[in-house]
């Protein structure tokens, strides 16, 4: 869909938009910092397209990467004291464990609205603005037009 005059004006104003600013359909790219994630799942409930969901599996390596001073960091510190080797791969999480779950992100479903970024309490999600010119060019490209019609 080609941009309207108003759309082009908004796109101009959005040029160089900072992280955390939702750019609507022009979008942002969500960059994840898994070590900061506390598994609260707020991004999952905030996501309008279902691109974020909670996994049934948990990777203890994510726990070991958590920064000290956080609840996950304390858990990792205790575990590290008794650990005999580096954590082996992910394991299935019992049903009532809500926070120790991986967050799955499917880029195909992501609309780039940035709702998850605003919902994240620990800044584990970061919005990187997509160059607006690039999006505009992509929208005008014949391939994109063909795909959308």
């Amino acid at each position, binding site marked *: 869909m080609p941009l309207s005059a108003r759309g082009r004006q908004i796109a101009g104003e959005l040029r160089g938009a900072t992280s955390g600013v939702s750019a609507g359909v022009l979008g942002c790219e969500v960059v994840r910092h898994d070590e900061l994630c506390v598994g609260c799942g707020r991004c999952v409930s905030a996501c309008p397209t279902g691109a974020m969901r909670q996994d049934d599996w948990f990777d*203890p390596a994510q726990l070991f990467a958590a920064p000290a001073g956080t609840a996950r960091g304390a*858990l990792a510190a205790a*575990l590290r004291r*008794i*650990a*005999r080797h*580096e954590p*082996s791969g992910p394991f299935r999480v019992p049903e009532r*464990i809500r926070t*120790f779950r991986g967050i799955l992100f499917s880029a195909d479903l992501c609309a780039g609205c940035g709702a998850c970024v605003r919902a994240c309490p620990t800044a584990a999600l970061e919005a990187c603005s997509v160059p607006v010119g690039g999006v505009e060019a992509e929208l005008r490209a014949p391939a994109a037009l063909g795909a959308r019609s």
Partner: protein
Amino acid sequence: MTAPAVATPQARVPELGAADVPGSDVIADAADGERTIVAFLCRECAYSAADAAGNARTPLPPTIRTIMVPCTGRVSPLHLLAALADGADGVYVGGCLEGQCHHRVGNFHALDRVAFVRRLLESVGVEPERAAMFTMSAADTPRFVATARGMDATIARLPRLPRS
């Protein structure tokens, strides 16, 4: 002239950190070579059973250290792991029978958390038997004694837990 050092009320309040979880202070008095097992017991059921066992002068393994919790739903994975990291060789949670939790679902949460801790221990090469969950009714003193002795026997078979 220097001002007299006056401790403000705020200065006397200890900082509550992750190390201050229950289980850190009760295991320090274990003699060298003696194993320690920390038991988190629910106030309504398991602790009552333990109390009755104590009143009846039933001999219990000397390794068991009991901690009363209002509900087993209060016990988090950090409580269990902090106890293990600070010197316990085993931890277990004693709660109400399934469906009889006085806070409705606390023991189910505890069951899953213990299962999570067991998988976590397994993933770093520690025997998962070091964490366990038992359920019993308040009147079931024999079951409390049996689980305490059973846990003691399980931990006695395992080597001491090395710490770094």
